[in-house]
């Protein structure tokens, strides 16, 4: 009878436990922003310098390969992409460097695409002049001004810039530092070593890609791919400026932020965390120029009084695009009316560069801030305090045996001594 009761009680207790556990709410997933994407803008920058006459792409001249590729690309530009075309070295054939280095023209303005007009404009191009990449990049960045969509520039050239001392790589870095999120992809047609270095440097400075092209089909597919990439939905980061100490640091909310940070320095930001919320911060520092082989990034969460709450650091060596670190800080639940806690975030880097490398503007920093519902604090590391494995079963069985023997002996003893009713 007792056992039957015990069993019934146990089963009921188990069912109750199951019901109680089933009521533990599952955590909600991160909300997806449902804002419509603003119009992306793409500008193709084509080199029409004299060297484009060389006939070495599948037996054709570089110029005709580029024209055919443009025809294909213009046919396949996705709906809703504003496309423009700029040329460099298309008009001035003379020997005057000063004039030749200003020779860049907006062939087709950035806007909704009229394929026929654009194709006609491209067809008129004849390889002519110099290769003023730097000035063309500056002008193209102005062409892409305005709007909140993604901005992408595709630079197609067969030679390096002929307009020193303006280094196009520095130009690209300055453009990137304006905070307009312009990505420059570069394509080199049969590039030599110095062209390759320059183009990959431009791409690296803006987070773009570099491709060397040796066949016409390759050129077409790559440009199509890059134009299509502009339609990918991306959250546009907000430019901010961290301060050297927490006290006057900018107050950030949930979102994604960009900043610039010079070599081997720290910047501070502040975030307000409500009780019951979890702060999640990730920082990525990109190396957009040549840096020394060993580097690191530090992300710390610090109270306003200077006590460190949590930190993460990441070090590395060798080729990389960015180094990242991330922290979580769950603020425990508290009575209503408890004010939000201000957490100071420190983003530091230990990048260094050879003496020849310019250190201004600083390295690009991307800071992602999320504030989510805080986690359930476990009272026990094990899952609901439950056990698992044959040792557990053995122990429980042994306990059962011992308990059964004891109660059995007690029963026998009490019956034998007649101490029971």
């Amino acid at each position, binding site marked *: *009878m007792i*056992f039957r009761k015990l*069993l019934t009680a*146990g089963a009921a207790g188990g*069912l109750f436990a*199951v019901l109680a*556990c*089933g009521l*533990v709410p*599952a*955590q*909600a*997933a*991160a*909300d*997806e922003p449902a804002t419509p994407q603003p119009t992306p803008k793409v500008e193709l920058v084509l080199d029409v310098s004299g060297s484009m006459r060389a006939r070495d792409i599948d037996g054709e001249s570089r110029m005709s390969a580029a024209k055919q590729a443009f025809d294909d690309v213009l046919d396949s530009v996705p709906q809703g992409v504003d496309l423009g075309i700029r040329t460099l070295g298309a008009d001035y054939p003379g020997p005057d460097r000063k004039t030749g280095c200003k020779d860049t023209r907006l062939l087709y303005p950035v806007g909704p695409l009229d394929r026929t007009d654009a194709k006609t404009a491209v067809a008129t191009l004849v390889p002519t002049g110099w290769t003023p990449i730097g000035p063309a990049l500056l002008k193209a960045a102005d062409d892409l001004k305005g709007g909140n969509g993604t901005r992408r520039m595709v630079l197609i050239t067969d030679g390096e810039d002929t307009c020193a001392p303006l280094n196009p790589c520095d130009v690209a870095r300055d453009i990137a530092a304006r905070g307009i999120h312009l990505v420059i992809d570069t394509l080199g047609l049969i590039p030599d070593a110095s062209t390759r270095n320059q183009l*990959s440097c431009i791409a690296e400075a803006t*987070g773009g*890609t*570099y*491709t060397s092209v040796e*066949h016409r089909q*390759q050129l077409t597919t*790559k440009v199509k791919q890059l134009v299509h990439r502009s339609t990918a939905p*991306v*959250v546009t*980061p907000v430019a901010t400026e961290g301060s050297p100490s927490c006290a006057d640091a900018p107050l950030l909310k949930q979102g994604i932020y960009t900043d610039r940070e010079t070599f081997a320095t720290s910047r501070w930001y502040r975030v307000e965390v409500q009780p019951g919320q979890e702060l*999640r911060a*990730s*920082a*990525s520092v990109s190396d957009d120029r040549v840096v020394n082989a060993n580097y690191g990034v530090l992300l710390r969460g610090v109270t306003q009084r200077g006590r460190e709450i949590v930190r*993460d650091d*990441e070090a590395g060596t*060798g*080729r990389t695009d*960015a180094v990242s670190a*991330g922290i*979580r*800080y769950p603020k425990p639940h508290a009575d209503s009316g408890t004010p939000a806690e201000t957490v100071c975030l420190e983003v530091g880097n230990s990048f260094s560069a050879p003496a020849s490398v310019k250190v201004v503007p600083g390295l690009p920093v*991307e800071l992602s801030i*999320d504030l989510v519902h805080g*986690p359930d604090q*476990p*009272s026990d*590391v*094990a*899952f*609901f305090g439950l056990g698992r494995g044959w040792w557990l*079963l053995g122990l429980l*069985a042994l*306990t*059962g*045996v011992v*308990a*059964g023997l*004891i*109660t*059995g002996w007690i*029963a026998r003893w009490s019956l034998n001594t007649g101490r029971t*009713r």
Partner: protein
Amino acid sequence: MRIPRLLSAAAAAGAAALLALAGPAAADDPSATPSASASAGGSDTPPNEAGTNFLNATVLRQGQTGTASASAGDYLYWTFPADTGQHVTVNATVTFPAATPRHGASTWQVDVYDGLRRRQACRYGSQTRTAAADATSVALTCHLRAIRSWAEPWSNDPLRGAYYVRLTDLSLPPADLGLPVAASVQVTSDGTAGSQAVDGSVAPVVSANGPAVAPSGGWAGTWWSPRWLWTGGGGLLAALFAVGAHRLARGPVTRGGAGYRSDVPDSPREPAGWTS
């Protein structure tokens, strides 16, 4: 008489408990986060593009093979969901087209970052490999630690949420920079049968600023683990052993034995507390 009855009652109670445990587990999964499953970024067609940074990483489902045509020197990013209790394996292959000969050996590496962009360790697998100049492809593997539902904020343990795969070359001859390559990535996982189940739960580590990532069936509920079966089964086992041991120790029920009143019909007349 009574032993079979007791045993059958115990078995029935155990079966009921197991059913009650398993039932809600199956029903809970799809209903856990309906919003997440609706916005589960990836579609059924595997992606044929790769992102270029954390923000525009291409969403890849587990089991899908994501492909991308890229240039040597590119940084290729994918992102995939990993849920509690999974042992995740990331396989990446880089194929070099025969049409463009290369000038020397190149070293490739696959890195896995968690939703907080913390680099995750590979337990084993060839994460970095060097391909000879005449190799046609190079295969990279990374086996992650088991995904947990909760970890201390100060630890680097992998939490359920989005994970990023970064594929790139660490070194290559300068003349090979920008040459075309084809990349493919596949993410698979197997379960840990509750061996790593910890208490507590952290909201899936998916940044609202990045791509929306969730398993196709939504995030699993945080209360189910095979540990319920182990512990419940253990309790049942203990009860059965206790009954057996009790009967063994008390001795057999004999008619006319000392103090035994087994000649009396039991049910109606037995007072409460009598241990049969």
